[in-house]
């Protein structure tokens, strides 16, 4: 009789442990998903800001057609890559970032732009969006790390393989210039 109780007790404890681990994994997976959605929002915001920026800057920049076109092209490529996986996407966005930083570097030659209120507001938005992209990537990668650790470590890896929890991909920065925030240095 005692043995039966012990077996029942062990089964119940195992079941509870399984449930806790499973729920923990679900929570982490959702966090990864949310973090990914957040990156998505910010990248989209950048895509939306760029036509505005190009439009504002165009009037002032007579000799930078190539640079402007490069930005527009990089943006369109990044838009196309929106549905791709994390790796490919990071590459396209990295190229957009470097095109953008080239544009913002030449802006310095146009002092008239500095006085443009519209441009100043745009600049704050752009700086902040760049920050938000890197912060959301940071949070995404932290979440992926936590989630992947959980799916690989004993004992939760057993639960993970039973529940079909697969490791997630990091959002790595491939193009070197993307690592730095765009230097927006047009006012002095």
């Amino acid at each position, binding site marked *: 009789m005692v043995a039966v109780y012990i077996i029942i007790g062990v089964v119940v404890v195992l079941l509870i442990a399984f449930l806790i681990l499973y729920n923990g994994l679900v929570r982490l997976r959702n966090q990864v998903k949310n973090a990914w959605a957040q990156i998505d929002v910010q990248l989209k915001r950048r895509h939306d800001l760029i036509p505005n920026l190009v439009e504002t800057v165009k009037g002032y920049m007579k000799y930078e057609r190539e640079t402007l076109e490069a930005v527009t092209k990089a943006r369109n490529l990044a838009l196309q890559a929106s549905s791709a996986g994390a790796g490919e996407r990071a590459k396209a966005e990295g190229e957009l970032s470097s095109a953008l930083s080239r544009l913002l570097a030449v802006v310095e030659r146009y002092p008239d732009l500095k006085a443009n209120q519209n441009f100043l507001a745009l600049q704050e938005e752009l700086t*902040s969006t760049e920050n938000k992209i890197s*912060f959301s990537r940071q949070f995404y990668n932290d979440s992926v790390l936590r989630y992947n650790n959980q799916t690989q470590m004993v004992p939760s890896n057993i639960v993970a393989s039973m529940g079909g929890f697969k490791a997630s991909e990091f959002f790595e920065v491939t193009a070197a210039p993307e690592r730095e925030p765009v230097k*927006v240095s047009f006012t002095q």
Partner: protein
Amino acid sequence: MVMGALLILIGYFLGLYFGSAIAGLIIALLVWAVLSLVAYFQGDSILLSMSGAKKISRDDHPRLYNVVEEMKIASGLEKMPDIYIIDDPALNAFATGRDPNRASVAITSGLLQKLNRDELQGVIGHEISHIKNRDVLLMAMCSILLGTIVLLAWYGSRFLIFGGTGSRRSSSSGGGGGALIIILVVALVFMILAPIMAQLIYFAISRKREYLADASSALYTRYPEGLASALEKLGTSTGQLKSANQATSPMYIVNPFRKKGMQASDLTSTHPPLSKRIRILRAMAGASFNDYDQAYRQVYQGGKGIIPGAGLAAGTVPIATIKLEGEAGELNEIQRARETSDVMWRLSNYNTITCDCGAKLRVPPQFKEPQIKCPHCGRTHPVPRT
């Protein structure tokens, strides 16, 4: 937890006086429950209205809004906290709200104009991590427990001194009298010590949460220097915040009651000394909790670390090296002061008209004329109606 136990023990000794321990416990718990409920549901709005904070939207101050949003993203908070500005030249900021989904951050206009973007990010990161770590709720509960302990201990000791002993002794029979006196003496000592102990525990918890928030801010921003240099600016000012009081002080980024030259390393401060906080942040080799913990040990010369489980956290987190310091169209301090004062005037429903001669006219809401004359150059301007 310790304070909860102290509270219950006080209730128990009070109960001895009233004849049953249970009655004392119930009194203690009732007082505690009422205070907790008030703090839980009304704490944030009480605090904000006491400090005269004004809520802002994205359009009022895009930079502040953006910085808060950046930190919200970095910390993984789910909901954007409300943002308030307090019109006060003192330099301070605080966070409030009972849970991460219903939180607010507030910053004084003085601090807002003093800090550049990186520093502002560090300060907001500190406040957001108070929200993320649920420090607001924790400190509110602790301070209520503390208050309850002090309250009950005060009444309890009065009862014991002015009447408790006499009446109890006469009602008890010979042999039990001696034991009862011993209990009462113990109770009296306890009544005196409990509030002091509770206070020290409370301060210790508060300081620990400050270190944790500093470490989190460094982790979120990946740039400890931002917060360090903000704290340095905070340290140079001694202006005390008009609206602060003892109960709300752990919520602020620096102790609102500190005085110049005061070495606040003693046991009776809600905040660790600023100079130590700055040195720890500057000694960080990376931006992770582990790095903060090591920097802490270095500054305090050995001993235990401050962040629980820091060694388990991700090993190396590099510090961001490229920062928008001074460039990036950053406003300088004068420009920030103008910007902030514009916001404050607008929040008080003043109309701001910029005259062609460069003067700014602030039109109060009770000004009813359709036109206004510039006192500098005499041009007339139409007054926009809102």
